[in-house]
């Protein structure tokens, strides 16, 4: 059993932080479960989206930041569109993922986080995504070397694979955007 009073004392301010950063009133949620009912990914998650909201309401920081749900959320925003309390739950999920990263918590769905990193690295490098380079890098780092190998040849034949990156003239400007954002968020995140 979780001693909620102790959890609340230890993590005081967590709910307020998530509310401030997401711009959402998590407090408003009355736990109807409509978000979970419509969530296309809920079948694969360890906690239902509704439960994640409850964890935030109760300042259960550790559990709210360490679960598969926040990583499997595809941000399709079905929950957001249907919430009778007007909570943008997809925005809350974004905030929880970002907070988990700031806190250095190992993502429970490590490949999801890895894919996001590799995608952004590709943009940082050339200003646009280089699909083929990104896929190779992802397969190497995830250890799934042969993932989708059977798609490679038909993609090549159908001319769906660009073999060189689409590097823009302003690639340096884009890299600068990444660097500046990192600097600002480092200070604001306090880590």
């Amino acid at each position, binding site marked *: 059993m979780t001693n909620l009073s102790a959890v609340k004392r230890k993590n005081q301010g967590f709910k307020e932080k998530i509310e401030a*950063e997401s711009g959402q009133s998590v407090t408003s949620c009355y736990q109807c479960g409509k978000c979970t009912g419509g969530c*296309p*990914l809920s*079948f*694969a998650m360890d906690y239902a989206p509704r439960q994640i909201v409850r964890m935030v309401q109760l300042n259960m920081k550790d559990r709210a930041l360490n679960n598969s749900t926040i990583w*499997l959320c*595809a*941000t*399709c*925003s*079905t929950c*957001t*569109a249907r919430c009778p309390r007007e909570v*943008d739950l*997809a925005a809350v999920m*974004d*905030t929880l*993922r*970002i907070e988990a990263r700031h806190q250095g918590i190992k993502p429970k*769905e490590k*490949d*999801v986080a*890895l*894919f*996001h*990193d590799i*995608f*952004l690295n590709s*943009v940082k490098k050339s*200003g*646009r*995504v280089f*699909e083929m380079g990104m*896929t190779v890098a*992802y397969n190497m780092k*995830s250890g799934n070397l042969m*993932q*989708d190998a*059977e*798609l490679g040849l*038909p*993609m090549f034949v*159908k*001319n*769906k*694979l*660009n073999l060189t990156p*689409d590097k*823009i*003239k*302003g690639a340096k*400007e*884009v890299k*600068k*955007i*990444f660097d*500046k*954002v990192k600097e*600002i*968020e480092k200070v604001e995140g306090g880590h």
Partner: protein
Amino acid sequence: MKYAYFPGCSLHSMAEEYNMATELVMEDLNVELREIPDWNCCGSTPAHTTSHLLPVALPARNLAIIEKEGLDVVAPCAACYNRFKAANKELNEDDDLKETVNEIIEMDYQANVEVLNLIEVFQNDDVMEILEEKVNVELKNIKPAVYYGCLLTRPPEVTEFDDAENPQSMDQIMEAIGAEPVEWTHKVECCGGSLVMARSEVVLKLSRDILKAAKQAGANCIVTACPLCHANLDMRQEQINKKFGDDFNMPIFYFTQLIGAALGHSKKNLGLKRHFIGSEGLLGSLVG
């Protein structure tokens, strides 16, 4: 009519056929598209799940370039469209954020650019009139399940486009070119999107549900306006058949490809041969 045009990364690579068909169709309809010089990636899902600032700053650089040219922008990719709209909304609601982002991009963006998806271009009477006038191939027995997915309509406060649960605008375009869109259940369901790399089995299930719903509704093809939906439904269809023992053979079209077919363009020029699931059987002699 003249717009700035933001093709996005997919339309320059995997979804190049969407770009090809869009350019042909827009030219036919007297809509001038001017590709933004030196545009950068919108950041897509990876940016907004990783940072609060990056998903605003990356689109803002593009939008600032467009604002200088004094045009509104058309973004055919559902993801780019969504990120542009989201960035604009955040910037318009928060002056401090606007200041920070302008410092980051070292440009002055006032968030005045209007962002349209490609379907919205057809919500103009002149464009529809020209379209109806120029249709010269009857798309007989083409029964598309018109698939909108997530990013065109949600969150509704961001996109402010059509109805979030039962959108109609793309169906109406299909009717205008003589196709017969079916009523179906999965118009706005999620295909799993970018989770396909990390958790492909989850995406195969979601995409299978969509194919199944389309088939059950009597559709003989699916029409989309999103490169990621297209990739999941077309390129992964064989994996779905293998995994679940299905026998789907459902052509997936970008909606401008079918419009282009109705306007008399060839399979080759519309990039139909780039798809994994062939459409020769369905389109037969309709398209040259």
